[in-house]
């Protein structure tokens, strides 16, 4: 799953449905944040809801490719403990398929 743009209050609302459908149909998900320019708690909420849904079905979700600022939000929020952030696609795929 590749996300683009701002994961703010408006951006999160715009992808909620897509992420919900993804959670309902997938067990191993790598979310590409390379082109996400901004992340705040509403975007984190969307990622967490999706990851929890996938996890409840025995699957796993990780994120990768975040720029410095977006990565700092993920680290500061503390969610990287439960929603791993990987540097690239290969590491993300390895994490969800292990």
């Amino acid at each position, binding site marked *: 799953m590749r996300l683009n743009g701002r994961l*703010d209050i*408006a951006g999160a*609302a715009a992808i909620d449905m897509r992420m919900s459908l993804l959670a309902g149909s997938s067990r191993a998900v790598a979310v590409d944040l390379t082109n996400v320019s901004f992340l*705040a708690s509403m975007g984190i*909420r969307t990622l967490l809801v999706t990851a929890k849904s996938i996890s409840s079905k025995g699957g796993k979700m990780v994120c990768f490719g975040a720029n410095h600022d977006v990565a700092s939000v993920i680290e500061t*929020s503390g969610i990287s403990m*439960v929603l791993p952030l990987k540097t690239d696609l290969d590491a993300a795929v390895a994490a969800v398929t292990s």
Partner: protein
Amino acid sequence: MLHEPSNVRTIVIDSRVEEVERLSTWVEAAASESPLIAAHSFKVQVCIEEAVANLILHGFRGEPGHPIEVCLTESVDELLLEIKDRGLPFDPRNVAEPELLTSIESVPIGGIGIHLMRNMTRSIDYASGETGNNLSLVFADTRTEG
């Protein structure tokens, strides 16, 4: 302590979700004119988003038509962000820190915004009275630290 204000920037938006991105554009424009704002630009944008999103969704219960004033005040080595409104009062200082996350199943959905604000600022202050609510966030100038 804040020194004598040398530069103040103010913007007023309406209490609508579509307005929030305009605040980031405003901060980025200010950052292009000020090294101090540029040093804190992303954190300021995150904190504005958190505070204003909370105001729109809870302070005004999703109702448009209410002004939200955002001010950035530069001093010698600190940046003051103020968010002023007349919505329902909410003091973020009263919210408990979230517990350490240990598993995806136990993650609470919510409360992360205030956690981010606390960890991205030097200090948070809040006042509420007849003239409305005023949330104040101070960002320290990292260029003078360490």
